[in-house]
């Protein structure tokens, strides 16, 4: 059964770094409250694609985008789109945990303050809620004012997730969120993703195919800037339709 609520609809997306084309005519539906995994070899364009979804690529000089990305039926490239609001709705978690050199509490509260929320009680409540959703509250509730830099790598990444969800996004983009973590911290992040998808739509780039197999509901395989195949994860990993996908996931590629 397909969950048919499309949260993001990508239509004929092309992306260029200067003259070099990095994405070729990508079309894809990303479903609400589902985890969509993006796999493919290095340089295949999956991270570039991910960054298109909240226009993070706008920050890179000499880049150009063609095509459409609809978030709830609104093209995010329309001139009237507020990019800051877009990035609130479509949050991002990066490969390496990047907490601010501030307290644990302030890391999570930061986005809320930027949004203009001043009510201390409201901020405290949202910080607690976010830390709980990120499965970090029990670890840090007694040391909220300590520096975030003192947390372990896994805890720092969960803090970054808490920071991302504090501003109540609708979509979470994750660019290899567990690649710098040990297996236990990785499992915690994966379990967290299972929980988070109840409230958020998640798109995750991963090099770890077993991770995509474990956590993604849908998986897209990218190769040389093209989306070769996109299907339910169980189909991709048991009976892919394209030869290129089969060769990549079985390690016969290259």
């Amino acid at each position, binding site marked *: 059964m397909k969950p048919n609520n499309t949260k993001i609809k990508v239509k004929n997306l092309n992306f260029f770094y200067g003259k070099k084309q990095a994405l070729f005519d990508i079309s894809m539906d990303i479903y609400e409250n589902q985890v969509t995994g993006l796999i493919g070899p290095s340089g295949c364009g999956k991270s570039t694609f991910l960054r298109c979804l909240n226009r993070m690529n706008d920050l890179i000089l000499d880049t150009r985008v063609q095509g459409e990305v609809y978030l709830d039926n609104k093209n995010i490239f329309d001139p009237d789109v507020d990019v800051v609001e877009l990035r609130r709705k479509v949050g991002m978690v990066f490969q390496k945990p990047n907490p601010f050199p501030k307290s644990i509490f302030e890391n999570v509260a930061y986005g809320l303050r930027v949004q203009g929320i001043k009510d201390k009680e409201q901020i405290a409540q949202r910080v607690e809620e976010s830390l709980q959703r990120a499965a970090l509250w029990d670890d840090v509730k007694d040391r909220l004012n300590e520096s975030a830099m003192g947390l372990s790598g896994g805890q720092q990444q969960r803090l970054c997730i808490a920071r991302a969800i504090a501003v109540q996004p609708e979509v979470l983009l994750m660019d290899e969120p567990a690649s710098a973590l040990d297996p236990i911290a990785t499992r915690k992040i994966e379990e967290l993703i299972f929980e988070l998808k109840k409230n958020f739509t998640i798109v995750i780039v991963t090099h770890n195919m077993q991770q995509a197999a474990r956590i993604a509901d849908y998986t897209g395989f990218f190769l040389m800037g093209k989306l070769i195949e996109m299907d339910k994860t169980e189909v991709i*990993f*048991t*009976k*892919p339709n394209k030869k290129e996908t089969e060769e990549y*996931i*079985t390690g016969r590629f290259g």
Partner: protein
Amino acid sequence: MYTHLHKELEKLKTLSLKMASYVKESLKDCIYAFKNMDTDLAQQIVDGDERVNHLEVKIDETCLKLLALEGPVAKDLRFIIGCMRASIDLERIGDETANIAQTTIILSLKPKLPFYTELTHMGNKSLEMLEYALESFFKPDPDMAIDVCKMDSTVDKLNNDIIKEIIAYMIKEIPAIKRSVYCINIARRFERIGDLATNIAESGVFIAKGINIKHYCQFDNR
């Protein structure tokens, strides 16, 4: 890129081929032993079942290790699952063959009954099915698997006909009842070998096409 997993899969294929070859030879010998009431050969088959059992355990361990350590996907995963299924079916064929050989030793003590030729014919049909099934599995050739399924109906019919004939004979020849029951058992075992050969062919289709044709034995060839 030829990876460590692919080397291990080659080893798994070799083990499976070895097991298949033992079982096929054992069935061939078993039919010969029955036809000629060759008790020495029959005893060798009974004794040889041990090596088939040993290979089943080895294949099981190999598959378990590959699944746990290598994270196989797609056709590699299907190949491992297919080999596990086939090894179970082959081991059962080995058991059926050993049982027929055991029964042959018992039957050899008394005069032959009139339907031994039909039983031998049925045995040869089940052997033919097994040969086709193994070829379709290892090639793999899904179209051949469909032929195996069709052959199964022939063996099923032979089984029904022989059993009817034996029952009719038993009514007339009361002193031969015990031997006749043994012959019914042999017919049932050949029929079962046909079913197991069909399973192996179906596993071959699963490996090649990723579809499960169990119980209906057909696929869309697009």
